[in-house]
């Protein structure tokens, strides 16, 4: 996380990939406790990843990392339980105890996220699709679209914010 905060894409990528299964376990446990099916898990995971990213400045580097991750995940889980009409009831006492991640099954698709991406504006959508699905880097996208790399990065950041907002406001 420290490297990620300093802007290192590769170590950030690795960190997020390690966190995803952990978040999946947490979301699965929370949803199951409220008798919700596992089809929503991936949406909660994606919403949590976006929140971790956009709120990463609120992690105090002198504090432990996992309670912070857990706190963000818990908040996002509560949000999505509320949106799904459940009264959230989550124990707060296991703060700091992140469950070990599970082995990864093949693909994880968020149902919401597909719709969310469709809701992005033209340029932003193009950029997100190129980077996320086609695996391009910001520089490659910039060349392809005839933009500066900086402009691509700004648009990407905006698109991520818009995605997070869409998760927050969209009913399931």
């Amino acid at each position, binding site marked *: 996380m420290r490297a*990620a905060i300093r*802007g*290192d*894409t*590769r170590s*950030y*990528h690795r960190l*997020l*990939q390690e966190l*995803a299964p952990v978040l999946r376990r947490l979301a699965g446990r929370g949803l199951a406790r409220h008798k919700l099916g596992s089809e929503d898990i*991936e949406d909660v*995971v*994606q919403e949590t*990843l*976006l*929140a971790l*990213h956009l*709120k990463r*400045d*609120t*992690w*105090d580097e002198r*504090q432990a990392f996992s*309670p*912070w991750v*857990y*706190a*963000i995940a818990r*908040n996002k889980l509560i949000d999505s339980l509320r949106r799904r009409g459940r009264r959230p009831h989550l124990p707060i006492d296991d*703060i700091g105890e992140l469950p070990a991640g599970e082995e990864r099954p093949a*693909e*994880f*698709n*968020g149902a919401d*996220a*597909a719709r*969310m*991406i469709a809701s992005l504006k033209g340029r932003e959508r193009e950029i*997100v699709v190129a*980077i*996320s*699905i086609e*695996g391009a*880097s*910001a520089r490659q996208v910039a060349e392809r679209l005839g933009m500066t790399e900086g402009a691509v*990065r700004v648009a*990407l*950041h905006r*698109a*991520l914010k818009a995605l997070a907002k869409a998760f*927050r406001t969209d009913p399931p």
Partner: protein
Amino acid sequence: MSTDALIKAIAEDAGTMSLKPARRLAIALSAGGLVAGALFVATLGMRLDIGAALQTWRFAAKMAILLACLAAALWASARLVRPDASPRKALAALALPIALLALAVGSELALSPSDSWPLRAIGTNGRLCLTSIALLSPAPLAALLVALRAGAPRSPGAAGAAAGLLAGALAATLYASHCFDDSPLFVALWYVPAIAAVALAGAAAGSRLLRW
């Protein structure tokens, strides 16, 4: 979209930096403080005998209580902007200003005859105290709420309350340097409800504006 794809997009955005929450709070407090300070100087201004007043224990106690409240609220706000900070612990910081106030009130009750208590408590500027704090606090409160929006408070209401307490304490500190009613009894009767009202307004605004 698959989670792996989303992770790629997020990782590519690793470089965007923004200000640390503590830095944002500091900027908001300075900006809001400047506006409130300018408003204060333009309308009320400090009392002219401020130097002499500082020699009296009542005035010094009044300022100490308010500054302690300001410090406690700032500390609480800086904590509550983080998702992993417990609201209860942050609000425990209030014990310091409350203890100082209790000590000052106790001293006043011990030192002054009981028939003077009502006059000391009611003072002469009660209404001005309430309106001044109400008018000086909105600018800092708004600035602080904007700063806190970048945060991720576990309890948006508690974070808003801390911002309100901070704005109220700032407004009260400014006003206190104008006011001649220095008795701790006056502080307890007028300042406390005024600051508490700003904290409540902050809590109400925070629970709407600080969700994330």
